[in-house]
């Protein structure tokens, strides 16, 4: 499902080179629920964005769903991302001027109104459909982000600290929704410090200095 071969990514900061990914190889099978842990600056988010076709590595190859994603042109990669990958971020990243409903429909590839209604019902957001993000609680915002990630029936959901800004109850709620997607055959990769996701994890990966600690 996800195959990284000798992937390297170097950032330049204050004249110094920092290897965010250091010759990293990783294979994640379809239907896995992978939790990635590691200290700050260990390369977790870089790894997630690299898998998500958002950050081209300096070296190595990345294949998702059998597609060498960085050999695709910009427009094709964007289409691939929309069809195959769902993102959930710590800061929710909802568009502030759109309602819950509109935020969910932003990435929709087709007319998916009935599915959007179902997802809203499942995530307990039906009542909040016409509210803007500022009027929502943190938990509702993150559930909106999860709904947005689910709208195109992606093959993979990539979640970067999805519970980082939530209280334990809401955090648990969001993890359960990700687990629900996993239970239906989806692949989940979560970067998190929290141990709530461990219950559902098929694998826990620890990172340090751009490498996977075995």
């Amino acid at each position: 499902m996800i195959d990284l071969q000798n992937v390297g990514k170097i950032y330049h900061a204050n004249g110094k080179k920092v290897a965010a990914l250091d010759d990293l190889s990783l294979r994640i099978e379809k239907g896995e629920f992978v939790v990635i842990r590691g200290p700050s600056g260990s390369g977790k988010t870089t790894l997630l964005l690299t898998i998500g076709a958002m950050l081209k590595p300096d070296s190595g190859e990345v294949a998702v769903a059998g597609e060498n994603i960085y050999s695709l042109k910009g427009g094709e990669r964007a289409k691939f991302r929309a069809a195959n990958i769902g993102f959930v971020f710590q800061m929710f990243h909802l568009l502030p001027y759109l309602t819950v409903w509109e935020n969910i429909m932003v990435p929709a590839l087709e007319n998916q109104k009935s599915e959007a209604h179902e997802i809203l019902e499942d995530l307990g957001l039906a009542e909040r459909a016409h509210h803007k993000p500022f009027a929502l609680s943190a938990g509702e915002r993150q559930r909106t982000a999860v709904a947005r990630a689910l709208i195109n029936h992606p093959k993979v959901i990539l979640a970067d600290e999805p519970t980082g800004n939530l209280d334990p109850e809401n955090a648990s709620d969001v993890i359960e929704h990700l687990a629900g997607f996993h239970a239906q055959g989806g692949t989940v990769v979560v970067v998190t410090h929290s141990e709530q996701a461990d219950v559902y994890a098929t694998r826990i990966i620890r990172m340090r200095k751009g490498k996977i600690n075995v």
Partner: protein
Amino acid sequence: MVLLVIKEILHRKINFLLGVLAIIMAVALFIAFFTSSEASKRETIRLTRDMGFNLRIIPKSTDMNDFWVTGFSKTTMPEKYVLRFKKFKNFSYAHLTATLHKQVTWRDKKIILTGISPEIEPSGKKKSPMIFSIQPGTVYLGYEVAKASHLKKGDVIDLFGKKLSVAKTLSENGSDDDIRVFAPLAEVQDILHEKGRINEIKALECLCLMNGQNDPLKIVRQQLTQVLPEAKVILNQTIAVARERQRKMFENYFALLLPFVVLVCAAWVGTLAMMNVRERKQEIGILRALGYSAGKITVLFLSKALLIGILGAVLGFIIGTALSLKFGPEVFKVTAKLIKPNYGLLIWSLIAAPLFTALASFIPAMIAVSTDPALTLRED
């Protein structure tokens, strides 16, 4: 896509309104100036026409001392000379009329007998006649002539053996026209035994030269040399010329001001677009994560710029027209009724303003799409 553009505009109203304001200012200034200037030009043309001919083409050998003392040339030239103007295009001469003038004594008074031919126009020009057309067998009497002889319309006079009917008595003009008897050219040539001869071609400088030349006389003389080297031309310096020069002066000021305004507005719109990009950096990252291509994001930014341009063009046209109606008469010394909305300018504004805003927003839009979305999202 449309929803995203509209909602973002409503969310960041100030940014949008400031952009529209910049375009309104630029378009309104242009429309106000252009509309008033056109009205001023129309008024100058009308005024020039009302004042009569301002070009006098006379035989080259005319003694100018005699000419200015008597008011006409004592030398004659062939009437057919006037026909030469017909074949010339893009000429600055208009309303050409062959005339024959001579001082005569009639009913114990010195008068000027003037023969007038129908007007002709150089090739490509179609204008309504500027002077009266005198029917054969009739005359028009100047004010003093009619008054001194107690003549009125319908009377029949004997003009050196020719019986002619008074078709009109002219009102007081305050010039030597008051002591003239106007008759068809052929009749006057017959009376003065000057068959086929004239001593002056009257014409109107069509203001084509005044639009772009500092010395119209030099140009009309050059043009005359091409057509009629046997003649010379005199240009009456009129109030209309002074008005036209004043209009030119405003045009020159405007020509200096316009690039400055355009540059300021471009910088203004560009800066606002750049601020918008900075503010939306994270949003761009999100949209990229959600599968929006660089092209789609460029369209989002350029759509907003186009909307600013379209709205600015429409409002700028309305405000500019209103400003020209309000202040144009004072600045350009024209009557308010001459200032009319020029809807052709609205179409031009609707093309130019969105193009301008799109160009001014192009660099910020390019920065928006080239911003590494991962970098923005990773910073969180």
